[in-house]
């Protein structure tokens, strides 16, 4: 498989009055052509910040990509790109859709014009051609009667339709990577399926690689090829979707999977609930960040950060339970945690 994006040891900090908040702490991953990688975690785990860093959307001086971080898009260094290179990189190579389709569209501009704007900046084509292409794009994202819809304003559309328009804008210059930041969170269930279906469809049609940022494990299970579980700015576990859902090795992944309510569970039973809240990222955290909330926490977990254990070519986990001296533990679905 051809690798198109590589992120190495990414560190991002926010400078606040109370001190430096280390939002991303050494995240590394690679993305292959045409695949879907999901970032999973709770709010504040650094998944959105990582996604924004890939597009260099973080505003200095408040947010800062630390020295030594590397983001390589097809071998090109993104962290030190100049303004010109960056503007063609954004949109033509990588684009992004956001959670709230209302605030990311300009309310005073017709949607057609908003699509055409990005087409004309990047493709240098005439107005007529751009309009034609805008209509084609609206058709691609399954908007009914695109010829008339192209002249609508965002407020005339429903939430699902707006998200489709956002996708159309993001796809305008046929990027190689689409970053979808919680694309369905603000939508209703019946609309969620429609949007996820559309993304799935576009992925096969256009061969775009997708980074899906979400907290919804249900969406991940049905959509992603690979998953990386993030917590407190670090990747705790990564693997193919099957490996994560069926053979996960990190207690945090177990906790996430167990707290998904399913229809099969007996009602009014106590739900599995992770105790406490994620750590304040202002703290240095020189040990496993999950230690305080982990049922399997050992003394060592509070002293040192575990190294990443390679379980298979795709499956890696950072947990002290993998150490040969650690006690035998069963995973949440009853398998041996260390083989």
């Amino acid at each position, binding site marked *: 498989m051809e690798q198109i994006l590589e992120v190495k040891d990414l560190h991002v900090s926010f400078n606040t009055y109370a001190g430096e908040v280390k939002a991303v702490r050494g995240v590394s991953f690679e993305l292959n052509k045409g695949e879907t990688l999901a970032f999973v975690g709770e709010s504040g785990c650094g998944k959105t910040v990582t996604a924004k860093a890939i597009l260099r959307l973080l505003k200095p001086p408040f947010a800062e990509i630390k020295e030594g971080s590397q983001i390589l898009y097809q071998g090109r260094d993104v962290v030190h790109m100049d303004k010109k290179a960056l503007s063609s990189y954004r949109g033509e190579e990588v684009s992004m859709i956001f959670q709230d389709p209302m605030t990311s569209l300009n309310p005073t501009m017709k949607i057609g014009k908003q699509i055409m704007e990005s087409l004309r900046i990047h493709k240098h084509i005439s107005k007529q051609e751009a309009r034609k292409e805008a209509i084609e794009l609206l058709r691609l994202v399954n908007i009914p009667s695109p010829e008339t819809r192209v002249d609508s304003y965002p407020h005339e559309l429903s939430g699902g339709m707006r998200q489709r328009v956002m996708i159309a804008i993001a796809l305008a210059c046929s990027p190689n990577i689409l970053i979808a930041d919680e694309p369905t969170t603000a939508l209703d269930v019946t609309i969620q399926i429609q949007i996820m279906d559309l993304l799935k469809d576009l992925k096969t049609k256009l061969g775009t690689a997708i980074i899906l940022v979400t907290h919804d494990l249900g969406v991940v299970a049905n959509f992603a090829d690979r998953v990386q579980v993030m917590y407190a700015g670090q990747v705790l576990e990564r693997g193919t979707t099957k490996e994560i859902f069926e053979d996960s090795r990190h207690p945090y992944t177990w906790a996430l999977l167990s707290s998904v309510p399913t229809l099969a569970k007996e009602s009014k039973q106590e739900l599995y609930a992770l105790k406490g809240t994620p750590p304040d990222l202002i703290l240095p955290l020189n040990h496993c960040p999950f230690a305080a909330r982990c049922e399997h926490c050992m003394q060592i977990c509070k002293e040192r950060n575990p190294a990443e254990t390679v379980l298979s070519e795709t499956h890696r986990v950072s947990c002290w339970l*993998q150490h040969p001296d650690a006690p035998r533990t069963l995973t949440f679905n009853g398998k041996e945690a260390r083989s």
Partner: protein
Amino acid sequence: MAEETMGMGPIPKEEPIPKEKFTVIGTDDFSGDLIARPQVSYWADAWRRFRQNKIALVALVVLAVMVVMVIIGPHLNGIAFEEIDQDALNQGPSAEHWFGTDNLGRDLFSRVWQAGRVSIAIGIAGALISTVVGCIYGGIAAYFGGWVDTILMRIVEVLFSIPYLLIVILISVITDSRSIFSLMLALTLTGWCNTARLVRGQMLQLKNQEFVLAAQALGVSPWKIILKHMLPNTMSVILVAITFDIPNYIFSEAFLSYLGLGIAAPNTSWGALCSAAQQTFAFYPYQMFFPALLIALTMLSFTLLGDGLRDALDPKLRK
């Protein structure tokens, strides 16, 4: 199983880890769910953010100096502001008369600060009057809503559309006086309309906030809801409005005095000083310079202070 890479990364391979470190000790105690960060009250937090804005801080210092000066300034060089010295007409700044004298030989330094008293007093009084009236008016309109709101707001719109110069002239004709009182009346008669609109808008927003609904569901009386929830949460908007209102009133007064509709002699204001100086401006520019400088400085400081306050008090900027 694939290779073990334990020992790579942050831990050197040589260093063995004692076995006893691998006993499970379980989760921390979260029964109380403590918070790590120190306690910060609303105003302490606002003050912290205000301090970061150096320009606003300078403006605040300038205004503080200004207030001190209008209190002690007229007595500083021992010459009373209305004292006429026939031997020293239109003198430039000197060791005796720091800012020079005017065409009647009155000491300009004392006069400038005396004028400042009047100008700043008018600014503050005007802003306070319009805030109090505006809050009550806007609050009533927002809380009762419906037709009460419609009628009250139409009245505001009508008042708003009358040019205030017309009102000032009418009032000075009717009251037949040029006292501070009639000037204040003229200025505030329509001045509160803006505040009323602002307060109404803010309160309408708050009325549908969930914490107000929660208070209603608890059975808290409407009066208490306004007093305990709506007003404190409108406070920041009101405070910012006051800081922007003060320079407006100072300027309006200066403008009216300049036109000869303001304060009557021997009392004076910055506008009146400028007005008196303009006839001889070509020969004695310093007579115009000092009051004009103080008007500009005060207005600028209040505006910058207002900007700083708005940023500091905006709840959306809190972290």
